[in-house]
């Protein structure tokens, strides 16, 4: 008799818990792409395509799938790379990453015809102007996506390195002359 009670109670318990799990699985389902959303929120969102992906969302998907390095986004720079690495919990080695030269678009006033093509493609509205007026680039808003360079019919839009001024000058990193310790060589030398 007791055996029957035990079998019935355990069966009921199993069924009940199974039902709970089933409901939880349906209603508390976690979208597997949550990490992609978070990554996308970190990215500049200008869809500039400098990373080689068609936009920020595909780049975030590639990052989440581990198919792209954390340092893929040139406008984000090392600051973004560190955020991405922290979010994904991966080690980031910035030692080998060459910080890309900061560039900014500039209009050559001699050749600009005021065709307005560049400011129509600028993703951040960094180019101002009007038809048949010389256009100008707001350097602080330019993200160096080079879309304007591609559409300019007179090649008057060119990328230039950002000028170093007293405001953005920084101390360079001290160069270390100590030879790197290579374990193999070191043990040979010492033994």
């Amino acid at each position, binding site marked *: 008799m007791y055996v029957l009670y035990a079998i019935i109670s355990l069966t009921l318990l199993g069924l009940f818990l199974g039902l709970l799990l089933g409901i939880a699985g349906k209603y508390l389902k976690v979208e597997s792409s949550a990490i992609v959303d978070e990554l996308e929120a970190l990215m*500049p969102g200008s869809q500039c395509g400098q990373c080689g992906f068609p936009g920020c969302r595909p780049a975030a998907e590639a990052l989440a799938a581990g198919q792209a390095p954390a340092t893929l986004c040139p406008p984000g720079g090392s600051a*973004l790379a*560190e955020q991405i690495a922290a979010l994904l919990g991966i080690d980031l080695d910035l030692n080998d990453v060459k910080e890309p030269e900061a560039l900014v678009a500039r209009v050559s006033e001699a050749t600009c015809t005021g065709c307005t093509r560049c400011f129509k493609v600028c993703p951040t509205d960094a180019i101002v102007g009007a038809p048949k007026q010389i256009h100008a680039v707001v350097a602080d808003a330019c*993200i160096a996506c080079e879309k304007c360079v591609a559409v300019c019919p007179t090649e008057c839009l060119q990328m230039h390195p950002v000028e170093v001024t*007293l405001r953005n000058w920084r*101390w360079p990193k001290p160069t270390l002359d*100590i030879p790197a310790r290579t374990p193999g060589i070191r043990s040979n030398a010492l033994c």
Partner: protein
Amino acid sequence: MLNLFGSKRIRGGVHAEEHKSLTSAQAIATDFPLPKRLYIPVQQHVGKPAEPVIKVGEQVLKGQLLAHSQGMVSAPVHAPSSGIIIDVNEYPAPHPSALPIRTIVLETDGNDKWLESILVADPFTLSPEDISLRVGAAGIVGMGGATFPTAVKLNMGRENKIHTLLINGAECEPYLTCDDRLMQERAEQIIDGVRIMLHGMEAGDAIVAIEDNKPEAFAAMLTAALPYPFISVRQIPTRYPMGWDRQLIRYITGLEVPVGSSSSEIGVTIHNVGTAYAVHNAIRHGQALVSRIVTVSGGAVIKPVNVEVPLGTLISDLFNFCHVRPDITARIIMGGPMMGDSLPHINLPVVKATSGILALTQSELKSADEQPCIRCARCVSVCPAGLLPLDMANNIRNNQLDAAVDLGLKDCISCGTCSYVCPSNIPLVHYFKYASGEVMARQQAQHKSEQTKRLMDDRNARMERIARQQQEEEAARLAAKAERERKKAEQGEAA
């Protein structure tokens, strides 16, 4: 000395070789020939650059306003001598990079004629706000090298109801003796400036702190302060960086300034002796800050001396006056050897921050032969801010800037004590300066990234709105066309 190290009131620090005897015994030279041209940068202070109010070709008098201050934290710039403005353009700044800065060039006429000003008979009848205004209008900034606008500091002191005004006469940097000589020769003017500042801040007491390696300056200041019981003059141990405001406040008052707040929040404000002297000149004589005393010293200087020069004097003129040997000059430093900046050349002007110009020989420099860290932790015991320089540098070397920030990178004051004692010649302060700049650059990059996102969203919203408007217009146009055709058909039927 032993109980000095046991003192809870001094953290870290070193007793560096002083080299002060080169210049400390000679009177301040006032026979400096007026340079033919003066180069006056519009930014010689912390805050926004001043905006020029003069035109090229204009005749100006000594003390006349050349550029007026902009915004809350800023300071105006005045003509250091009489003459003609010949250029307003970009010239190299007295900065380790020597990058261009907006500069007013004045060709002196040799008369050195002051602008007439109306003097106040008794400054103590002026309201404290008026004192701040006059100090601000005279272009006075912190003369110890921090160049924070003094008027702003006076206002902050008044708003926070400070109880003690500390006057910094520590001059703890090796080689520099300009404050020492100023205190020896012009003690009464300094004490008068202190009284005016006390009035301007509505504060009660002032303490003048002087390192005990300057007994003559101490004696002179003590005598000058005798008639005023609310001004006390105290000797403090000679130990770099005693002149760091937080170190000095901790030693004198026993109070610790919390991280991220200013000293006036705990009821203390600190000013340099040179600032007090400038305040005296501004209020008593109506003279703007147009000259300063500069220590020219170092092994490559044949005639090391303290000299009073007009602001904007080129360092090359100063070196001619003091006979500097270029053949043995290994490094030119503006400021003291511990915290000063190395300059790439000497065609740079003297500014309000220039307490000294040093021409050092190779033997006076520390070896650049960097060796691996042996973890002796000497840098830890001497750090006045209580940081771990060796660990911070290690993290920075491996680009772990966040870890360095966690260890207190932002509390580093770049005093140079750690680099000074490092037996492996590791340029620790260079690492911290690099990292601080890099952290700031990353913050700016992150800010720009956020702004970019905002610009993008705005643009997308605008594009959608335009598309919607076009659709609506198109629909309206089609509807109007249909209406016209219907009416036409009706008319045709009626006909």
